[in-house]
């Protein structure tokens, strides 16, 4: 036994020892690679930290000049005027109004399209339409801004002669149509995830397609469908170009879509287009506005993903 081990050791020493040395090199190389890959993965954490860090840093300087109470209660937002006011409410109201119009358009159309696609359309139709929906999700939003300003607004002005050239209605409607493919696609995924056995159970009771879709499949997929809505809301709230082009730039507290008003995003664009000196209160104000925007979308996103996870766990 003992001799055998010694012999084995000897033979290893004789023949494998150079490769053992190589082994260490190999291990080091593997470790370095793993470390570099980890650094790359950490870039996501780094990005998040940078976003939060930059927004907080500039916002803190901003809140040295402006009280937090004023920020959330003042109804005027005029950081670029002599008599400067820094109330975020006008921008929030503009954001919420355009988003509400968008949702009023997108939720009915998106849901109906999803139900149709999942429960009524033939396999072939679905195979063709699904990729087109994905294509539509990728159309740049600036193009939709053009559409809102120069196509839809003139049409709406024929219906409502008092409608200003920049208005939240047109921007909201176009934003809504823009989000339809996304909502339809995500909601349809949720409905397809409902097991076939549940549909069969319903059909076996003599239910029609419509009854099965509305009474069984939709309730079964409801958390996924709501998740689609919420992720859609988050998109509407964070959307920039459509509102920057078509909704106008007056920061007023108004929930009337027929008026022209600025959103948080449109305000940031407006300031960035001007030539504000770095470090001025106006410059800092866009970071404070951005922080509010990030918080709003973050809440929606977390809620949406939690709901999505819930239905993933169930089936």
């Amino acid at each position: 036994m003992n001799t055998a081990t010694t012999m084995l050791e000897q033979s290893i020493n004789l023949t494998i020892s150079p490769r053992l040395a190589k082994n260490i090199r190999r291990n080091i190389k593997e470790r370095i690679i793993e470390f570099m890959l980890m650094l790359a993965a950490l870039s996501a954490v780094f990005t998040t930290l940078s976003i939060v860090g930059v927004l907080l840093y500039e916002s803190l300087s901003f809140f040295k000049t402006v009280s937090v109470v004023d920020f959330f209660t003042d109804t005027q937002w005029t950081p670029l005027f002599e008599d400067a006011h820094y109330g975020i409410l006008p921008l929030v109201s503009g954001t919420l109004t355009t988003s509400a119009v968008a949702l009023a358009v997108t939720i009915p159309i998106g849901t109906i399209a999803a139900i149709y696609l999942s429960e009524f359309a033939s396999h072939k139709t679905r195979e063709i339409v699904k990729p087109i929906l994905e294509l539509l999700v990728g159309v740049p939003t600036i193009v939709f801004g053009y559409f809102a300003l120069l196509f839809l607004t003139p049409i709406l002005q024929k219906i409502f002669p008092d409608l200003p050239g920049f208005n939240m209605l047109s921007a909201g409607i176009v934003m809504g149509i823009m989000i339809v493919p996304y909502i339809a696609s995500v909601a349809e995924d949720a409905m397809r995830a409902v097991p076939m056995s549940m549909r069969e159970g319903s059909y076996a009771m003599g239910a029609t397609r419509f009854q099965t879709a509305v009474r069984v499949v939709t309730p079964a997929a409801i958390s996924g469908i709501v998740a689609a809505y919420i992720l859609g809301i988050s998109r509407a709230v964070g959307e920039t170009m459509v509102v920057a082009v078509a909704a106008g730039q007056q920061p007023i507290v108004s929930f009337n879509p027929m008026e022209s008003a600025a959103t948080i995003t449109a305000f940031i664009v407006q300031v960035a287009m001007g030539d504000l000196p770095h470090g001025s209160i106006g410059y800092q104000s866009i970071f404070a506005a951005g922080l509010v925007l990030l918080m709003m979308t973050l809440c929606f996103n977390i809620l949406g993903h939690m709901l999505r996870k819930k239905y993933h766990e169930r089936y």
Partner: protein
Amino acid sequence: MIKPTTPIKAESRNLNFFYNGGNHALKSVSMPLYENKITALIGPSGCGKSTFLRCFNRMHDLYPGNKYQGEIVMHPDNTNILEQGVDPIEVRMRISMVFQKPNPFPKSIYENVAYGLRVRGENNKRMLDDKVEEALKGAALWNEAKDRLQDLAFNLSGGQQQRLCIARALATDPEIMLFDEPTSALDPIATANIEELMSELKQKLTILVVTHNMQQAARVSDYTAYMYLGELMEYDDTNTIFTRPSRKETEDYITGKFG
């Protein structure tokens, strides 16, 4: 042997079935279902017994490309339920089904049982209450469920869920009830409950059951059909099939030499 006076509730005549893609799954199957009797379908997996069962409520219509040939005639009105003009929904309102795995809807216990009635446009609360109670009693679930009718159906145990699905199928007073391996996902005690239930149910309606389990077929059924590779090999009363099968293949399957 089969008493010629027993009334027939439904019968298949030269039934052929082709899946999308051309797979010839049923080959000229002709077989009666006697009224208020339990007929069991046995055979190795893939023999077409589930396919045959699912012809009775036109379940295959849900998937494109499937094709029936031949007839399934329901008595006493002599309707060929496979005929083009007959709406599968009408068929399913007369013939209900219980599935292999319990498949309750994501609704309350009450709404699960009431589903078939609601689908028929029934919204009268008194009527629904009565029917739900009757069906739950019929499915031997009333005592366990009566205090938690508004609970989500998913909170029931597997055996309870399957009885709930039976109650759901029962609530609409079907003429025939189809059971597609109803106990394959259940433990022995739940299985015994379901079998007992089936024997009681046949007072009221006609039952066709697919089973993997030959003891089960022997225990619950009055008539048994042995299927193999899409063909009906032998059909007789259960006693005869299990004691004196006329074909060698049936005997081999029953005695476990193959399958």
